[in-house]
């Protein structure tokens, strides 16, 4: 998908061992498959069903999402700043699209 569809917040720097908050937001309709258009046809289910985060290639967070999560899903979680590097985010949607985002962190 185009740029500007996902947004993440990771502290640029952190002390080693510090607990940091990571935030991620995706712009997505999260159609639950139960809604109808004005003409009576069903809007097919189209959601992000999985979200994953790697910290220097190690999976540190994953979630399976189901219907009934609101449009533009937002998630925040905490982790421990262990070393400098890259945090990679992946959102998987029903159409097989994967949206990615990454952020750098410097641990001092």
């Amino acid at each position, binding site marked *: 998908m185009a*740029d*500007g*569809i996902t*947004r993440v*917040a990771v502290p640029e720097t952190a002390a080693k061992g510090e607990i940091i908050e990571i*935030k991620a*937001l995706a*712009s997505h*309709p999260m159609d639950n498959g139960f809604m109808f258009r004005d003409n009576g046809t069903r809007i097919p289910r189209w959601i992000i069903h999985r979200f994953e985060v790697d910290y220097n290639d190690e999976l540190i967070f994953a979630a399976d999402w189901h219907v009934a*999560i*609101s*449009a*533009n*899903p*937002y*998630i*925040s*979680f905490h982790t421990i700043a262990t070393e400098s590097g890259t945090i990679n985010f992946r959102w998987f949607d029903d159409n097989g699209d994967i949206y990615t985002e990454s952020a750098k962190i410097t641990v001092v």
Partner: protein
Amino acid sequence: MLAAPLAPAATFAQGWAAERYQVEDRKSGYLYLGDQTQALQDDDFLNHAFFAVERGAELWSAVDGAAGVSCASCHGDAAESMRGVTARLPRYDSERDGIINLELLINRERERKLKAEPYAYESEDLLALTAFLAFQSRGIPSEVEIGGAAAPFFEKGREHYFPRRGQLDLSCTQCHDERDGMMLRGDRMSQGQTNGFPFYRLSWHSMGSTHRMFAWCNNAMRAEPYAPASEEYLNLELYVAWRGRGLPIEAPAVRR
């Protein structure tokens, strides 16, 4: 929402103090929101409307149309060139001999300066560029010109606001002045101010313009809505902006 942090009681959108959402007896719709919806507006990261602002920023500097230029080619950094513009809109325009608003100005610039097709009203791209430009006036008090050539159009807008209309025989003022603060089904009725537009409306799952809101309210009165960009809505937009004079531009706001 999975885990929206609740707004600490003392913080307000953009770090504003509570007083900034009210000027004399005029109150922003923000003050009628629940804590969680306020929290969405308070944090530019969480505010869903910022997807539109980001898209608008891309459109601002994207070359489009036969002239081979972008908005930024002439106007440069919008944070400087467009600061305050939205706070003075809508306004009288001699060419139209009528009222022009931000959406129509953007489209006129596209047609004339970019030699590009105008955007459809209420299209994602027009809402995005409108949100991006309105955002440049955040914090600036709305101050529209209603005298001189604007006066007859302002009067027409006022004349739209007070009469009862529709099957429910209601007027704007009966809901937004007389029932200010009361509940209408799940909604707490605000004063119907426009300083947050274009906004992200959670119940629409999308951005919306002032004119879409007017049409929604006309429907709520079971009255036939006018078309977006109609003279009726442009005149009404001027009147309603004046009603909220002095309220700082809050765009892009979040509403239920």
